[in-house]
């Protein structure tokens, strides 16, 4: 454009439209232009592209050219007069200087290669005048190091700080892009880019503030936007170094910026030892930054993190409007404005800004820091909520927008939420009337159910089928499987009844999945009549959530993504006229939609990497209401919107280990706005159980729910048919906690297991003829791979570092089988979790299997429980790369072979320690493998899979698999043969799940 000669008439047209449009608000413009251009799209385009520069061009060329030139010359002369601190090709520490990138008032910058890590870095030499004294340099180093240690994506990483011939240099990330200042000055930010950058910058600030590091010079030229759109805060710690001695008496650290301090409303007052004698003119940290100082900075007061909040507020204002919040031709005029004036409303400059923006800016720019946002987290959550609201206002753009509900923001909300919670005195309803409606055993848990609107029927599901129970008499009728599903195994769930009470809505899910992972994939929606008639399929590849209060509409989820279904659809109650209602991007999921009692609003769950959040919205649009943020919602097992307008939810009590305990909480929501209008109140005072499948009658007087308990116990079964059948499985450990079998004692008469019966996990030993155990060692929280040594004297185990994860190798420990303290045998070498195992006499071999760092090879080394690490026995290629940390390995009882799987999906290989060829055990459909043990005869394996709540199979080396045990209600199981091959210790689930009804709540 502008290259060709524009026809004068054309130009006049452009000019006239441009000026006319300028008189209109931003919203009116597009309609006006559309009308005026009369289909001449090029004309409209030209005018619009000029209008786009209107605000950013406001300050362009307003400073006379002479002055601009003088400053440029000044800068250049300074840089030219600077001697090169280092020569090209020279190596300082581990940095080889490659080329000089530039120089200026703030030093000289080189491109260098980190010869140790083979990466390119920027080396910046600080001007000598900046480094006044060792103390200030030391503080700077401390701050810059601390900031870089965060390794935060929104902070330019400092790799190293060093000195070369008396000159300090900083090695940092070499970035490509431009400063935010340039971005704002040259081109208006794209729609809502201000919000994206704003959130990024606040995240960087938050991370730094939490470490007690204040930037003190936040301004657009200190924020760099990389070519891939990431904002990075530059020069942490430098502002303080650059400030003239004695002008700013803030010391380090300022105050503890832990979240708790601030959310409790304690605003730490910092006392100024009155720098009042300091003249205003002395407080500036650097030339040209006067426009971004906080009032307390101008006054020369002691600074804390809130100074960055104010400066950030100015940056945010400028990003959103293209203009500086405070204007003044001179430093003092600017400072005067910052101290006394309020910036003109941002929406006057950019009418497209949401009203809430003014609120946020107002609070960030409070002159009195006590009234300001107290932490970066606070302003971050305000921005996050604003972003959600904006996204909801533009449903058309909904899909395009990346919604990453930032954990930090949620934490802040959640902290606030918990504060509310704690202040609510538990007013437990004491007149609750409870009645158990089903009486299923722990092996046959009721998975879910729902009460009919009139309260007469209960529809429910257990692993054996689908039933309707007449509550009054207890008479139960089995609903026949639909013909279409008769040959298939499906898992049903029931969500709600149609208002007429004659049929209910059910979903058929593919079998074997944990119910928390159910999605529309492979699922179908059915309407099931109560009295006769076959269930009727309404839709395939759908997961129904609810029926609207008038019975006309069914909501369902579809389109499965990474976190679950990504679309909520509506259809008529007969399954016709399906239409998309809401959708979301790939990095999140939505589902579980419920209508409000008056049918005007809905609530649903949003899921992303931070977890679930319960949100509400008006069907006609409007802002999103955050009802339960992720930190709370992640512990919510179920929720429902009661006919009286209360939200009821089952919240898991915070508990480290042991059984889950949940209680019902209620919170009244405003029928119109959907906002909570009272504090959450705890309704129940239960322990040891959790609830799901909550449903209410139409009058709201009765509630039904499934109440479940969990627990894990050790069963013992006798082995038959060469170990491929079990007989007579029986409860062995008899407590209510979690018990996990680990090994048998050498004589085959006792089982060694982990148990949390004494509040924390410990290692126990229980003889087959006893019903209580002896403790071997009590504090075994991180112990795994617990084995009895071949001689039967020791219990040996791997102890993972407390911070679980592959960062630190595990320790191999031993404890006498008779009990005692653990002692270190040796440390594993691999960072990838290792496995240990022992053969059975006559072999006394114990070995450790360690994966190489590249996860391609397995190294087997012998060890002795007393002498420690022995010799390397073998190295094997995994065949293909091992999958994560979930690799499996056990040694054959005779100590000659290993059974190895690189991951949960196999394949299982039998590897010889004697140089025999490897053998693959070809098993059909053996996925989600969790654990494997050799059978006592060395001819087969006991393999546990994470399907059907934990399935245990015997697999012979030819690949024939025989299912021995399914752990309904659990997640996994263990099958551990005794050395003589007579018994199998099995991990089984205890507890159960049944439907209850509750009144007077």
């Amino acid at each position, binding site marked *: 454009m502008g290259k060709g000669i524009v026809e004068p008439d054309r130009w006049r047209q452009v000019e006239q439209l441009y000026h006319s449009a300028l008189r209109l608000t931003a919203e009116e413009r597009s309609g006006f232009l559309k009308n005026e251009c009369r289909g001449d799209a090029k004309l409209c385009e030209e005018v619009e592209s000029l209008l786009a520069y209107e605000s950013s061009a406001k300050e362009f060329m307003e400073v006379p050219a002479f002055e601009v*030139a003088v400053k440029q010359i000044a800068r250049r002369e300074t840089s030219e007069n600077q001697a090169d601190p280092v020569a090209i090709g020279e190596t300082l520490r581990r940095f080889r200087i490659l080329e000089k990138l530039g120089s200026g008032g703030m030093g000289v910058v080189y491109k260098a290669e980190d010869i140790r890590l083979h990466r390119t870095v920027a080396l910046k030499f600080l001007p000598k005048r900046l480094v006044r004294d060792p103390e200030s340099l030391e503080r700077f180093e401390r701050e810059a190091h601390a900031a870089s240690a965060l390794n935060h994506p929104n902070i330019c990483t400092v790799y190293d700080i060093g000195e070369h011939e008396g000159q300090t240099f900083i090695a940092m990330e070499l970035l490509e892009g431009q400063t935010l200042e340039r971005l704002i000055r040259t081109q208006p930010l794209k729609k809502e880019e201000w919000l994206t950058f704003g959130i990024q910058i606040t995240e960087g600030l938050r991370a730094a503030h939490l470490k007690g590091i204040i930037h003190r010079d936040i301004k657009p030229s200190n924020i760099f936007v990389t070519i891939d759109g990431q904002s990075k805060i530059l020069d942490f710690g430098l502002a303080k170094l650059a400030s003239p001695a004695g002008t700013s008496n803030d010391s380090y650290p300022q105050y503890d910026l832990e979240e708790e301090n601030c959310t409790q409303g304690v605003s730490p007052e910092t006392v100024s030892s009155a720098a009042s004698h300091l003249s205003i003119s002395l407080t500036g940290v650097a030339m040209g930054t006067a426009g971004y100082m906080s009032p307390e900075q101008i006054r020369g007061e002691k600074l804390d993190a809130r100074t960055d909040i104010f400066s950030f507020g100015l940056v945010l204002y400028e990003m959103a409007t293209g203009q500086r919040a405070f204007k003044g031709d001179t430093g003092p005029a600017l400072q005067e404005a910052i101290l006394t004036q309020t910036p003109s409303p941002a929406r006057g400059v950019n009418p497209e800004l949401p009203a809430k923006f003014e609120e946020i800016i107002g609070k960030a720019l409070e002159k009195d820091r006590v009234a300001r946002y107290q932490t970066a987290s606070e302003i971050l959550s305000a921005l996050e909520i604003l972003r959600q609201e904006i996204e909801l206002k533009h449903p058309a753009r909904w899909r395009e927008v990346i919604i990453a509900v930032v954990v930090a923001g949620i934490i802040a909300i959640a902290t606030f939420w918990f504060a509310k919670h704690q202040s609510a005195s538990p007013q437990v309803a004491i007149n609750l009337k409870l009645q158990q409606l089903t009486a299923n055993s722990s092996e046959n848990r009721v998975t879910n159910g729902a009460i009919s609107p009139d309260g007469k029927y209960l529809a429910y599901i257990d692993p054996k089928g689908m039933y309707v129970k007449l509550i009054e008499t207890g008479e139960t009728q089995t609903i026949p499987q639909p013909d279409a599903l008769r040959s298939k195994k499906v898992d049903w769930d029931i969500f709600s009844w149609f208002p007429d009470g004659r049929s209910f809505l059910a979903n058929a899910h593919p079998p074997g999945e944990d119910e928390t992972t159910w999605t529309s994939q492979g699922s179908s929606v059915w309407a099931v009549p109560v009295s006769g008639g076959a269930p009727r399929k309404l839709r395939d590849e759908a997961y129904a959530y609810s029926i609207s209060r008038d019975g006309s509409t069914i909501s369902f989820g579809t389109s499965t993504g990474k976190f679950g279904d990504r679309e909520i659809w509506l259809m008529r109650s007969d399954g016709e006229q399906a239409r998309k209602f809401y959708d979301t991007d790939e990095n999140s999921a939505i589902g579980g939609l419920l209508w409000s009692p008056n049918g005007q609003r809905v609530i649903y769950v949003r899921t992303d990497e931070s977890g679930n959040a319960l949100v509400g919205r008006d069907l006609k649009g409007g802002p999103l209401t955050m009802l339960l943020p992720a930190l709370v919602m992640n512990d919510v097992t179920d929720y429902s919107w009661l006919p009286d307008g209360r939200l009821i939810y089952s919240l898991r009590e915070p508990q480290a280990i042991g059984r889950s305990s949940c209680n019902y909480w209620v919170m009244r929501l405003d029928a119109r706005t959907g906002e909570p209008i009272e504090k959450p109140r705890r309704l129940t005072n239960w322990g040891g159980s959790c609830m799901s499948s909550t449903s209410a009658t139409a009058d709201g007087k009765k509630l039904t729910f499934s109440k479940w308990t969990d627990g894990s116990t050790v069963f013992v079964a006798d082995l038959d048919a060469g170990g491929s059948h079990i007989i007579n499985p029986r409860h062995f450990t008899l407590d209510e906690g979690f018990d996990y079998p680990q090994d048998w004692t050498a004589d085959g008469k006792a089982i060694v297991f982990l148990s949390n019966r004494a509040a924390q996990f410990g290692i126990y030993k229980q003889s087959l003829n006893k019903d209580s155990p002896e403790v071997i060692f009590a504090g075994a929280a991180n112990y795994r791979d617990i084995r009895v040594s071949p001689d039967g004297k020791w219990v040996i185990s791997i102890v993972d570092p407390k911070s679980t994860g592959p960062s630190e190798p595990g320790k191999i420990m031993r404890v006498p089988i008779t009990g005692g303290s653990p002692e270190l045998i040796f440390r594993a070498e691999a960072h990838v979790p290792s496995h240990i195992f022992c053969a059975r006499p006559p072999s006394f071999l114990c070995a450790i299997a360690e994966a190489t760092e590249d996860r391609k090879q397995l190294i087997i080394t012998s060890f002795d429980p007393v002498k420690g690490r022995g010799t390397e026995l073998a190295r094997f290629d995994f065949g293909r790369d091992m999958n994560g940390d979930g690799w499996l390995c056990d040694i054959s009882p005779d100590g000659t072979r290993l059974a190895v799987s690189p991951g949960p999906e196999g394949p299982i290989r039998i590897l010889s320690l004697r140089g025999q060829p490897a053998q693959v055990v070809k098993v059909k459909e053996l996925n989600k493998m969790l654990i494997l043990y050799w059978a006592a005869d060395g001819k087969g394996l006991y393999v546990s899979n994470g399907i059907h709540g934990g399935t245990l199979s015997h697999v012979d080396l030819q690949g024939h698999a025989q299912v021995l045990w399914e752990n309904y209600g659990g997640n996994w199981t263990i099958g551990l043969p005794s050395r003589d091959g007579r018994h199998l210790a099995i991990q089984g689930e205890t507890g159960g799940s049944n439907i209850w009804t509750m009144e007077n709540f």
Partner: protein
Amino acid sequence: MSTNPTHEVTSLLHAWGRGDEEALQKLVPLVYRELRQAARRYMAGERPGHLLQTTALVNETYLRLVGVRKVSWQNRAHFQAICAQLMRRILTDFARARGYQKRSGKVNRVTFTDALLIASQSEMDFAALDAAMKRLAEVDARKSRVVEMRFFGGLTVQESAEVLKVSQDTVMRDWKMAKAWLMRELNGEGHRGT
């Protein structure tokens, strides 16, 4: 070199205004010297708190350089318009000599290095601006002149209106649109790579 540079500059400017190209060659070093001196004063004052003085100093230097006070009010605007042309030429040449244009022809790109070093305003590429103004002149010569007078000459809206013999409102409208147009031009539209 005359002991009274202001006087010399004034007469040279008049000569150049009359079409004497040789006058320009004499003018350039004088203006450079003034620019440098101003720059040095600016650097000397580059300490916190001296912003006011520095800005005033720059303006004062400029006024002194062109000797505005000695020119009668009647001619002053016209005289300043000539100064504006001069300033545009000098700064453009200056920028070219400095190799500004090597920066991929755009004023807008501030590299990471610049960000680390300058920590204040970014550079104006006078050469690129001059080229853009030439393109603007092809479309609308008056707008280009308004920019020249206002930015390079420091003329007020009133003074510009007087020289161009149009209303102040017209100057204001020209100025607004020219700024947006030039900014778009300098930005190269869509060069932002984000």
